[in-house]
């Protein structure tokens, strides 16, 4: 799918802005701090329900405003149009609408706009803590398999219950010991579901990740990248595109066994030490952790390859996501820039931000971003009329009086 138009009302730095987008590549150009990233962030919020930069919604609403409204008009492979809007109300309930009609649950509206975003923060995928890479897998799975989010909530609830019991045990409650096997089983069963889903995602990522990393590196001699998943039981499973199935029951037994082995340590620390909350997605270079062994250029390449691979995994079900690249090209050398540009040429829609236009060897329209507004740099009306649109309200109105 692609997004034809995005409207932002009281979102971040924008009073009211309308951004017209095209299929294929396009570049948002403007100096630092004018709000280029906010446009990509808006699309990410519509897709995922939240920002990639901040936890809460407060920062997303323009100062002095009560709520922010985001609205996107999309068109899918078969040419069907859809309008998705989301009102962000910090302290209240966010409200989503699809084609103007309210939806009972927020998540019924999410995922209709599909995006894969690569931002400077993604360097943490390579350099950051295991938690950063777990979050990457969790976010990918939440988009790929809607039941995953609920499974995660179940696991976290079981984990909190078991940790509460371990604390009671440390305080000398004799009944806690008797209750432990039940919660060990609950954590193992619910945890195994998450580990199974993550392992499958990891295996599915293996081939696209290797292909994209090799493509970006352009055949230059260098270390071979790979993915692996390290379980909290210290077992490492190397990602392998050939693996299609994972046995959750076996994983549940492995987790339960792990907890029994570390019972002593868990009792002392009064916390659960085995489970998906202690796992790690490992990015390797020649079998060594890229976190410590990748150069800066390699780290960017690997993080980017992982995001592009995620896009391919997402595409297996449903529509092709829009690719959002936030200030990426300036970090890459000329060869990588050209190869990333070639890859972008194959995607249905790509939106790129850049402070310096010359950094981006991509065709497509340029959109000039100034504080509070986004304008097509050449002939915006030609694009619209050529595609027979004009029914999206008043396209001339860029800013609310």
């Amino acid at each position, binding site marked *: 799918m692609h997004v034809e138009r995005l409207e932002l009302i009281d979102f971040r730095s924008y009073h009211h802005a309308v951004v017209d987008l095209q299929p294929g590549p396009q570049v948002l150009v403007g100096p630092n701090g004018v709000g280029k990233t906010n446009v990509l962030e808006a699309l990410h919020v519509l897709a995922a329900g939240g920002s990639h930069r901040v936890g809460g919604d407060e920062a997303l609403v323009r100062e002095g405003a009560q709520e922010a409204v985001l609205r996107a008009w999309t068109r899918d492979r078969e040419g069907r149009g859809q309008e998705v809007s989301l009102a962000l109300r910090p302290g209240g309930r966010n409200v989503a609408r699809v084609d103007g009609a309210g939806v009972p649950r927020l998540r019924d509206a999410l995922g209709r706009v599909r995006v894969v975003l690569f931002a400077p923060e993604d360097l943490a995928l390579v350099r950051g803590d295991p938690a950063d890479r777990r979050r990457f897998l969790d976010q990918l799975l939440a988009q790929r398999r809607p039941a995953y989010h609920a499974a995660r909530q179940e696991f976290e*609830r079981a984990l909190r219950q078991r940790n509460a019991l371990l604390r*009671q045990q440390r305080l000398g409650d004799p*009944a806690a010991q008797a209750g432990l096997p039940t919660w060990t089983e609950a954590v193992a069963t619910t945890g195994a579901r998450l580990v199974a889903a993550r392992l499958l995602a990891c295996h599915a990522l293996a081939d696209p990740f290797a292909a994209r990393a090799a493509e970006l590196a352009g055949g230059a001699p260098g270390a071979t990248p790979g993915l692996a998943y390290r379980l909290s039981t210290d077992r490492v499973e190397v990602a392998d595109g050939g693996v299609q199935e994972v046995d959750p029951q076996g994983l549940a037994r492995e987790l339960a066994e792990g907890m029994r082995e570390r019972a002593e340590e868990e009792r002392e620390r009064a916390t659960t030490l085995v489970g998906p909350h202690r796992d790690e997605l490992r990015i390797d270079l020649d079998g060594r952790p890229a976190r410590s062994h990748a150069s800066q250029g390699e780290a960017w390449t690997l993080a980017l390859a992982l995001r592009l691979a995620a896009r391919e995994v997402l595409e297996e079900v449903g529509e092709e996501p829009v690719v959002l690249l936030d200030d990426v090209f300036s970090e890459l050398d000329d060869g990588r820039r050209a190869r990333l540009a070639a890859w972008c040429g194959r995607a249905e829609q790509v939106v790129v931000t850049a402070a310096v236009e010359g950094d981006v060897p991509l065709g497509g329209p340029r959109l000039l971003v100034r504080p509070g507004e986004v304008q097509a740099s050449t002939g915006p009306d030609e694009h619209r009329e050529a595609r027979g649109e004009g029914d999206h309200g008043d396209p001339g109105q860029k800013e609310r009086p």
Partner: protein
Amino acid sequence: MDYEGPIQDLITELGRLPGIGPKSAQRLAFHLLTVDATDARRLADAITSVKERVRFCEVCFNVSEGPRCRVCRDERRSDEVLCVVEEPRDVVAIERTGEFRGRYHVLGGAISPLDGIGPAQLRVKELLARLSDGAVTEVVIATNTSIEGEATASYLSRQLQPLGVRLTRLAAGLPVGGDLEYADEVTLGRAFAGRTQL
């Protein structure tokens, strides 16, 4: 600012009820102020008599007016099947189906360490005592499908296994008569995992 005297007392008391916030408490209190004295009296009587006359069945711990509840007094029901539920309201839900003709055992909640509820706080000892004479051949565990309900089911199965009684658990899956597309992802996923051979 608080109101004077009895009206504030009423608002405070109503506000302590589950699901009633300060605004609702205030609305209810002022509504009660306008109703007939007889209607208000009826409500007051209902509240007092629920505390005075309702107690827990000595056998199954369902709510009851006498020492034994309606289900335990009913001689036409089977003593061989025992259905274990969390709360009295679950008994009512199952009774509405008219399908189950055995007896019940009400645990009084589910295991939840975060709320300080362990097996000792539930009527598990009483359940084991009821099963000791061997009259019951099947125990249906009908705790909720929440994580706490599942944990309680797994705890009970561990405790009851040595007794050699047949243990069953209610199936989780699709609502009957509904469209597949309206089922939420979790329920549908659970139904998929628990699919049966035709």
